[in-house]
């Protein structure tokens, strides 16, 4: 009876893992096939002769290198700047007293129910007015702080003991010094978690970059891939190579740092 139950549980888990992983493994396999090889029936599982031609063509003729650089640049900048702003604000909301603090924080929380798309049309006009449409700034500037980021940092910072701050103040450290040398080290776990969250989210972001970047030289990988896949509907092998380049970096980052990512999920239980 118990043996049967064990077999059932593990069989179901193995089946589910097959379903989640097979498309990803197959993407990798098709990306190594020569043109046209995947458009046969029955669908081949492995390339008859593995080749990197698709990747070569993506970099040589489709300008994929440019998109990789754009994505990397935007992800790094957004992550660094938003971490600085969110961590500072989250800490202040948790541990420092100032007039209107709780009212402002409640307002921010309430605004979490507003889908970001509501702001998109006026945001586009505002950025156009500021000359930021069709520049990196159009993606970076609105993402420099997030309510979600402030929220998770505040929740974590609430557990920092006041004595720690008092001791540093008695030693004569000013508030900025305390933030840099006492608070940031204590908040390290949540900073790492938020960094992983923000960077993966920025890398994967689609709708806003699609709207604000018109010049294909500025495209991020997801925007470029969506546009290429509309042009190259038949070139399955080429598109799979593009999909690998787009999604493999985030998968690898996740595999290395998954502990932090999953912590963040259960900590906030709030969608970005």
């Amino acid at each position: 009876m118990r043996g049967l139950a064990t077999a059932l549980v593990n069989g179901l888990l193995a089946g589910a893992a097959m379903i989640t992983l097979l498309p990803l493994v197959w993407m990798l396999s098709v990306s190594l096939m020569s043109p046209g090889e995947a458009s046969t029936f029955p669908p081949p599982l492995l390339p008859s002769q593995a080749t990197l031609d698709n990747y070569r063509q993506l970099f040589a003729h489709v300008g994929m290198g440019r998109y990789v650089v754009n994505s990397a640049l935007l992800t790094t900048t957004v992550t660094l700047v938003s971490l600085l702003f969110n961590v500072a604000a989250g800490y202040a909301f948790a541990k420092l007293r100032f007039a209107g603090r709780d009212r402002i924080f409640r307002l921010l929380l309430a605004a979490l129910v507003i889908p970001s798309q509501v702001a998109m049309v006026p945001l586009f006009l505002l950025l156009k007015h500021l000359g930021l449409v069709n520049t990196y700034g159009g993606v970076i500037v609105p993402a420099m702080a997030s309510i979600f980021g402030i929220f998770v940092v505040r929740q974590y910072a609430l557990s920092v003991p006041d004595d720690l701050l008092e001791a540093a103040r008695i030693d004569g450290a000013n508030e900025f010094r305390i933030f840099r040398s006492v608070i940031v080290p204590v908040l390290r776990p949540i900073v790492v978690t938020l960094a992983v969250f923000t960077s993966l989210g920025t890398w994967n972001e689609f709708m806003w970059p699609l709207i604000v970047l018109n010049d294909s030289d500025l495209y991020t990988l997801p925007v470029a891939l969506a546009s290429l896949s509309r042009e190259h509907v038949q070139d399955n092998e080429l598109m799979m190579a593009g999909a690998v380049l787009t999604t493999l970096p985030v998968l690898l980052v996740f595999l290395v740092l998954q502990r932090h990512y999953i912590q963040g999920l259960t900590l906030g239980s709030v969608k970005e």
Partner: protein
Amino acid sequence: MRIAGAAWCFVTPALLVIGVFFFLPVVAALALSLTDFDIYALADLRNLRVVGLRNYLQLLQTPLFWQAFANTLYFVIVGVPLSITASLGAALLLHSRLARFPAFFRTALFAPVVTTLVAVAVIWRYLFNPRYGLLNYALGGLGLSPIDWLGDPRWAMPAIIVFAIWKNFGYNMIIFLAGLQSIPEPLYEAARIDGASTWRQFRHVTLPMLAPIVSLVNVLTIAGYFQLFAEPYVMTQGGPLQSTVSVLYFMYEEGFKWWNLGSASAVAFVLFLVIFGVTVVQLRLARWEHAA
């Protein structure tokens, strides 16, 4: 006093960004939705006129808007329960003491969540290919006739739902798993001493203890599924026969393809009000159930 001054230095950059690039646009969206802002106003603001509720009234008379709304509802009503069931099922399997290698399986089942939506949509478009796709190959193996997944208006939305569940279920799975792990073991021991079967333990211990998390997950997942956009953009471009045009897809085309920015803002606001209304009703229901 010195502390308050420093505190303002800490919060001001973030509040400024959120205020100028989120709160201001949200308020502006409401104002914009009451104007006829279009490509002429984009060129010269003097062409802008205030039209009151005309955008909203016009939307109600636009068949494609209603179709987009119906498509989105279909996606939410069918997709969310299936997705949450898959998440709960997977979490229960992972939580089971019988599971071997739970860490490996957790990572494997969660992997689609972190992938780039556009990239995996490209993969699935190929899996759904009526001639060469693995899905129809598998159907053939089961003796079923092939389906034109993305080319048949009856099947396109179900195909997108299948894809969305594959992509998303791992997210709620992790939240359910954390919930399951926080249920105190003595509750199960007491149930076992009373002779409760596994099913009765699930029914009378697990489910009630998990109920608050389920209702939270419900609210968040429904709000998320209402925001369907990239899947139809990449996989079907709204087709065939507009069977996968979602509200946001409609808003995107209205605003950034036809440059009817006033009307697009009205669409965004309608979507927001619907999500908000559904959320409020759900929270009320949850509280009412709790009290009962």
